[in-house]
């Protein structure tokens, strides 16, 4: 291992979705909250989980499980608040994990046999002791095709 001065650490907020561990770059994460009184949006793409009022701002909830092609587990979903182009979003997750500080050098490319939907939004994986951590690209996660809704 190289000395500290050369080592770059990336910090990630981790969360479980559908049994898989994911990590989001910490600088993209605004907060973590429990969505309350969700308003469903009729006619919206199924990847949209609904809208909530968070301290006066309307936050669009994105169903990460649906987006990633996984099945949600756990009763009460938490949400990770992110922002993109001035709009607020909440990524629905099964449970929140800890903040991990990981060596940038240890970031590996996605395995070739990774599910297409996951590969589309992920920038790489970390091989942790017991599991794989999939790093998510927030911008790509939020690139939901809005026109699919307006059928």
């Amino acid at each position, binding site marked *: 291992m190289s000395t500290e001065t050369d080592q770059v650490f990336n910090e990630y907020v981790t969360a479980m979705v559908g049994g898989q561990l994911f990590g989001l770059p910490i600088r993209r994460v605004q907060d973590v909250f429990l969505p309350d009184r969700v308003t469903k949006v*009729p*006619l*919206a793409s199924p990847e949209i989980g609904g809208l909530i009022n968070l301290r006066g701002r*309307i936050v669009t909830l994105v169903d990460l499980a649906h987006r990633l092609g996984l099945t949600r587990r756990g009763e009460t979903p938490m949400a990770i608040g992110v922002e993109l182009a001035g709009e607020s979003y909440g990524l629905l997750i099964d449970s929140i994990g800890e903040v991990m500080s990981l060596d940038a050098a240890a970031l590996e490319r996605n395995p070739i046999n990774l599910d297409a939907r996951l590969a589309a939004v992920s920038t790489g994986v970390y091989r942790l002791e017991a599991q794989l951590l999939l790093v998510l690209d927030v911008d790509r996660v939020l690139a939901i095709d*809005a026109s699919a809704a307006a059928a």
Partner: protein
Amino acid sequence: MDDLLREFVTETNESLDVVDVELVRFEQDPNNALILNNIFRLVHTIKGTCGFLGLPRLEMLAHAAESLMGKFRDGLPATREAVTVILATIDRIKEILAALERNQAEPEGADADLIADLERLADSVQAAAPHTAVAATEQVLGRPLRPGEVPLEELERAFRETPVDQPTPRKQKPESAEERPKTETAKDDEATKAGAQSIRVTVDTIEQLMTMVSELVLTRNQLLEIVRRHDDSEFKAPLQRLSNVTAELQEGVMKTRMQPIGNAWQKFPRIIRDLCNDLGKEIELELQGAETELDRQVLDLIKDPLTHMLRNSADHGLETPSERRAAGKPPQGHIRLAAYHEGGQIIVQFSDDGRGLDTARIKAKAISQGLISEADAEKLSDAQIHKFIFAPGFSTARTVTSVSGRGVGMDVVRSNIDQIGGTIDVKSVAGQGASFTIKIPLTLAIIAALIVDVAGNRFAIPQVAVVELVRARKGGDHRIERIKDTAVLRLRDKLLPLARLSRLLGIDGKDELEGGFIVVTQVGSQTFGIVVDGVFHTEEIVVKPMSSKLRDIPTFSGNTILGDGSVIMIVDPNGVARSFGSTVVSQMATAERAQPQRQEKADADTTSLLMFRAGSSQPKAVPLSLITRLEEIDARKIELSNGRHMVQYRGQLMPLVSMTEAGVKNEGAQPLLVFSDGQRSMALVVDEIVDIVDDHLDIQVASATPGVLGSAVIKGSATEIIDVAHFLPLAFEDWFRRKDQTQRRRQHSVLLVDDSPFFRNMLVPVLQAAGYAVTAVGSAAEALAMIQQDRVFDVTITDIEMADMDGFELAEALRADERCAAMPVIALSSQVSPELIDRGRRAGLADYVAKFDRQGLIAALMEQAGIGDAA
């Protein structure tokens, strides 16, 4: 960026916009020295400032332009070419300014081409044509000045420096945060001279202010919601005050966002001028209502659509002068833009007197694009076909000209206008021209909305689009009818298409339409009904733009946070209107055409009834018109005398009659139904007055109980119809007997013809009380039989709506018979209309009275028969 520089760029851009407009005006009115001086001064100022700030390139351009302008002042004729070159110079300056703003420095380059042109034009014809302005300065008065007179030079100078009306007087335009530096010259003086106290504020500051106010409005709504739930709260009064203050603050901040629509129109004269040049057409542009104010955001969004329509009209709509002459029109085409406020919206009308829309071509294009089948297209009216120009991707310009652009058609205009929640409509007459009407909301931010319920979900519908709320019920004024399989609402005399909001949104809702709430909505010229499950209230909501992921859903125009903190979607009436396919519209059009005179017999027999309870929980009812007054008295006032209950009422003793054993109350409020006849009153004691309703009176089950005529279904409940005539004599035995028994006058006789036993029962006592001898029969045939038997009557009262022979026919028959030709016939009917009265008159009826109008009947009798007790 350097503040000074920023401000310079802003102001210069504004000045250039003004110069643009003024130059076009000057071209049309070259002798107007005022305009010329104005332009000159502006250009002069620009040159000065450029020099001061060290912007050589701009300075040289401005200088060359100023020289040419100076020559104009000296008398050089302002040719088209000269004006075009100056306009080109203005454009170049704007480009440089834009680059300056971006890069904080002038772009490299020289403008030798323009400067050469400007100098060439300035040098040409040095010897100017005699110009009176120049001559004037050399005029000499020839005598010393008298006191109070001003020397000519001073006059001239004042003349030159007088501020001219700016097209955009409002200086509250955003940009720089500080007041103008004192180094500025004439313009500065002008501002202070004009006395308009104003400051510059950045857009951001205003936006922030607006957001704060919106949040304040929301928080106030929240507080109101909470206080609403607590009846007695000391918060109520201060909250009311807060609410008022918030409303005023809101209004004040809204005002800062308002700008005159003229700002969007500023460039139009110039655009038209250029287009005229390019296309070889003559066009006159009329702008009306430039001072109409609208929200800045809205203004920004309609600038482009209007510009596009202008170009379209000039390019495709208006014909060339020769074509126009051939068509018998004046060679100059006319475009008119008018803006005004109406009903909470801004109306912008754009019209030209050109060719109008090519209906055939639009139809062909719509069919070829698969928007509609040929068969359906045939059924559509011209107006409906014209609407297709708003369909996406529709442009019908034969050639794509550089002027109007590539296939960017009215559909883009429409979607731009949609975005701000507005509507656009078109009217066109072939050969005469077309006119577009744009309606846009006054402001985007805070609107009044109706909160509705659909299957447990709440939604907001902008109040401005709501015409009325109705509840559909069978047999009512508002009914659901079906055309083929589509449900429509009959609203008085119109048929409106219905959209079930639950279905539109894909939510499982109630299937049953009966009894549903319908929000009658109007969008543009379309009126339709939105079916919802419930209606809550109206609330002022702050419109928050939809998430970009949801913006494409046509049914929603935004979302908001209600007073209770919940997020709800705002329904876009435009989106709902669009869900009606053309088939529905044409089906309805057919149905409406096939609707000649469907006499609404169903409406004929509704009666006003008073519903109440007395002695049991079953509702009872009595025709409202029989009742003189509804009262509620303190039960302690009821006295018992001679075994009867009575109360002192209006200076007299009024007996109380109970319908049941229950009797009168001992304490509390006692509701009473008061019947009066002349001086006497009696009251019927009831337990509770329930309601006053309008419904058919159809006694289905007759009753053997005295005092009850029978049972009818009123408002869905079995209701006992009370026989008032039974109770009245219980109060005064002689209620129906004549008051004056000493004078025996000849009783006049009345023949009453009515096929309803109820009405006969009711009218007979009334007529007897008025002093008539009544013979009642149940049909016209029986009446005629009586006449045949040589029975004589003084007057006949007949119902109109009877089976077999109706009242009109009976009247005609009676008239025809000489035995009774002189006998007046009075008609009683639940339907009274001018047409029917006319008909009656023609049939020989002496009078026409509404059923249950007791007073009217008595009065009519008096008139016709000449006697009878005053009612």
